[in-house]
């Protein structure tokens, strides 16, 4: 009995000591003893979605290195800590704990939506500032401490309608969407509302469900009969490839326009990329875009020797995210001595006042609910690769 009590006491003591050890690591100093601003995030660095996570990791690291080389934020250097969550919500929660022990003061949240909802749940309790580069689900930034760089899922609908109307891509539009999927129907609803406001005519809206996603001939026939000039596809690329194939077979002659769900269509195994020729899609980043921000980013990214497959929209979003944090931190006068909660309060206020130019857009501003407002960027597929429009 006595032995057990002793053991319990010993274990408790060990735990206390370990706690202090963890704090010791998190005193906000680099190896050289200089204080830093600690930025943490988690993302899928291994597994199926590793390209996303490593994109964010490399993009963010590139920005951190550049900022540090130029003297840091308000004279304070930045320090980045990436954690692997394999796009899993539970692992993202654990990663949040690890990062907090490390002394994280600002967070880039997580890379993927599901993980971000869990991560943000913890961060909101601590009033930790979160700016996710790429989590698109609406709920991913619930809470006034969270912001994002990318468009939310439904806001891609608004952005698409704006792009089509403002650039006069078409005036008669048809839509095929997945009514059983929140991403797709969310975009569809916002798209319809914005299209009406912008004077686009939606000549037919066809849908399918997760159970009927192989045969689209009836929907395509309706699109053909409706006289639409453009077919808007707020869906994922695997269904889109079937639609493109069947549209070609049935001689449906329209322009195709999609959102980030179509991103990846060119990487599908054995896919005949000529089917995707001239497909337009809304993505924030194309490697070969000619604007100075993209050229600068792509050149520096390649100079660093990062894996080319991670040079994707996630890397661009993350690169921008770090610069956005810099802009907000300078506006708010953040220093490394402030606690995470103090930093969060100051950044929250600053976010709605700043305007940032970056790779994924120019003149980006934020509303208090965390959603960005920026001009949408679109690409067109030519000869099997993206070309900026």
């Amino acid at each position: 009995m006595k032995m057990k009590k002793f053991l319990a006491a010993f274990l408790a003591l060990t735990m206390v000591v370990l706690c202090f050890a963890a704090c010791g690591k998190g005193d906000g100093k680099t190896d050289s003893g200089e204080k830093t601003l600690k930025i943490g995030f988690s993302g899928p660095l291994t597994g199926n979605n590793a390209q996303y996570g490593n994109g964010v990791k490399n993009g963010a690291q590139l920005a951190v290195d550049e900022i540090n080389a130029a003297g840091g934020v308000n004279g304070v250097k930045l320090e980045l800590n990436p954690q692997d969550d394999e796009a899993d919500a539970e692992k993202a929660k654990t990663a949040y704990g690890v990062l907090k022990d490390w002394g994280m003061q600002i967070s880039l949240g997580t890379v993927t939506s599901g993980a971000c909802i869990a991560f943000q749940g913890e961060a909101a309790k601590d009033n930790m500032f979160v700016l996710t580069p790429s989590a698109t689900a609406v709920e991913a930034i619930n809470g006034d401490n969270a912001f994002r760089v990318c468009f939310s899922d439904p806001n891609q609908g608004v952005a698409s309608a704006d792009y089509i109307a403002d650039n006069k891509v078409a005036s008669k539009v048809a839509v095929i969407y997945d009514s059983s999927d929140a991403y797709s129907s969310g975009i569809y609803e916002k798209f319809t509302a914005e299209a009406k406001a912008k004077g686009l005519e939606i000549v037919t809206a066809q849908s399918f469900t997760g159970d009927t996603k192989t045969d689209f001939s009836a929907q395509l026939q309706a699109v053909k009969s409706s006289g639409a000039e453009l077919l808007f596809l707020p869906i994922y690329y695997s269904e889109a490839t079937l639609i493109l194939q069947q549209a070609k077979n049935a001689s449906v002659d329209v322009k195709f326009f999609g959102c980030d769900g179509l991103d990846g269509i060119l990487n599908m195994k054995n896919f005949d990329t000529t089917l995707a020729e001239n497909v337009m899609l809304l993505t924030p980043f194309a490697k070969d875009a000619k604007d100075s921000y993209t050229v600068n980013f792509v050149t520096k990214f390649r100079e660093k020797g990062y894996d080319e497959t991670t040079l994707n929209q996630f890397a661009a979003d993350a690169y921008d995210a770090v610069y956005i944090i810099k802009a907000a931190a300078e506006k708010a006068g953040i220093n490394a001595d402030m606690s995470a909660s103090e930093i969060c309060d100051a950044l929250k206020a600053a976010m709605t006042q700043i305007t940032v130019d970056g790779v994924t857009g120019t003149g980006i501003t934020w509303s208090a609910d965390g959603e960005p407002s920026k001009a949408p960027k679109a690409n067109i597929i030519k000869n099997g690769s993206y070309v900026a429009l």
Partner: protein
Amino acid sequence: MDFLSYLVSGISLGSVYALIALGYTMVYGIAKMLNFAHGDVIMLGAFVIYTISTTLGLPAIVGVLASIVICTIFGIVIEKVAYKPLRKASSLAVLITAIGVSYLLQNAALLIFGSDTKSFTSVVTLPTLKLFDGQLIISGETIATILVSVVIMVALTLFINKTKPGKAMLAVSEDKGAAQLMGINVNRTISLTFAIGSALAAVAGALLCSAYPALSPTTGAMPGIKAFTAAVFGGIGSIPGAMIGGILLGVIENLSKGYISSQLSDAIVFVVLIIVLLVKPTGILGKKIREKV
């Protein structure tokens, strides 16, 4: 012209359902069990063709033949390992096992081939038919699927009614015990049924993925369930019934997509199914007595 287009695409979709339903109804008719793994054998067959013809670059016909052989072997093995030990168990236990096999195949494919969707290269080389100045378009895949379904339907009917192993199947379906007493090897007959059912699945896989070229580990699941519905619609156990059920299901689905609502098409299909079953509980061609097939 819209109506004709909807009708043709409905027949095209329906002929795929019919082809899959033939396998379902055949196994049900003889072995009196619902092989819910049928759809996943289809997926497996399609992956075999994809691997051989696309990854290794061999001609499509080699892929299709290999797929038929491999699916046949799989069908026999699945029956021996998963269903035979349950021959005396309740039909519910067998049904659950079949669902288990279905998940096993899906997850094995997930492990081996990954979750990303692959684009399947059509094995059909027939040209596309364009009628009425290109207003009505019938793809080569549609023509091939309809032809193959009809040929298989006729061949199966002849096989079951005219050949010795076919008659043995009929006997087993009516009374296993009596069949055994008559000197019929029941186990071998049921194995043969599964072998033929799985070979049909391989053919269905080839044509399904040629018509709808997106291949992933869940490719067979939904068409499998639709085809099962088609088999019930036509009268499960009846071979011509599966054909009629499949085509009708496809046509109803596409016409309701075209004229009523693309969102409600499934609901409409199942309402029609319920009405048919209320009027004729055994399906369109189903017989009341147990003499199915």
